[in-house]
């Protein structure tokens, strides 16, 4: 949808993930979309280098969010939100409606 503008479908997936879940990590995104993790790592690094997203290390996991200090964040999010409205429902159900509420440690699935 925004691939032509962003130059890359992986970036679109990253943006939708961060918009919907608020945060994300490379392996989680790779598993969610069934794609190699290095594709996400590369683009996340590129976006972080550009100041659009920010990351912090939690244990061994590098967690990414939109960078709240990015000066065009409000406008960027407005564009991504608009584009997300056009994502087909089956795709939203498959990729963007994961359980986000807590799950107690040790609880059987």
């Amino acid at each position, binding site marked *: 949808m925004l691939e032509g503008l962003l130059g890359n479908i992986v970036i679109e997936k990253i943006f939708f993930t961060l918009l919907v879940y608020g945060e994300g990590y490379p392996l989680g995104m790779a598993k969610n979309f069934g794609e190699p993790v290095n594709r996400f790592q590369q683009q996340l690094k590129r976006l972080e*280098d*550009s*100041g659009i997203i920010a990351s912090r290390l939690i244990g061994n996991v590098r967690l990414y969010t939109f960078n*709240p*200090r990015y*000066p065009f*964040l409000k406008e960027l999010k407005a564009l991504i939100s608009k584009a997300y409205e056009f994502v087909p429902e089956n795709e939203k159900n498959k990729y963007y409606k994961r359980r986000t509420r807590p799950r107690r440690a040790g609880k059987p699935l």
Partner: protein
Amino acid sequence: MKIDWGKISIKDLASLVCGKLNEKEIDAVLVGGACVSIYTNNTYVSYDLDFVSHTSLKHIAGALSGLGFRRESTRHFVRKDCPFFIEFVAPPLSIGTEPVKQRKKLKSRFGELVLLTPTDSVKDRLAAFYHWNDTEALEQAVLVAKAQKVSLEEVRRWSEHEGHMKKYEIFIATLKK
């Protein structure tokens, strides 16, 4: 002029970098913790020099090689015998959602340094406190506000625009302690 890279001050190094970039017609502005170091006369010590420039990193790398700094990763530059670390953060030059309109110029024996004004330096540190709850950044903002002439009216206006008046009140309360 002989330079002792191991003992060079942050202000002198920043001036050297600015001067070298200026020679090549590259604009760069010092931002972040290094401004705090300079404005507080090293009450807060930073080993990280963050610059913002709209010139490509390739051109910047060429200019900095003249000072013996080599590019270590995408945006970082190091020199073996120098304790400081230079980073070129992604443009634009902004604080929160607003562009930076003023710059401060300081002269040293190594040249002219261009950096954020004290008021913008306070806003820059407060942005980290507002968005990431970084209390160290709050302390840095207070240090600059105590050491330099800062427009609290402007800081208040900006804080309101950013939607962080509650945290601005914390800043003011900390400043008055």
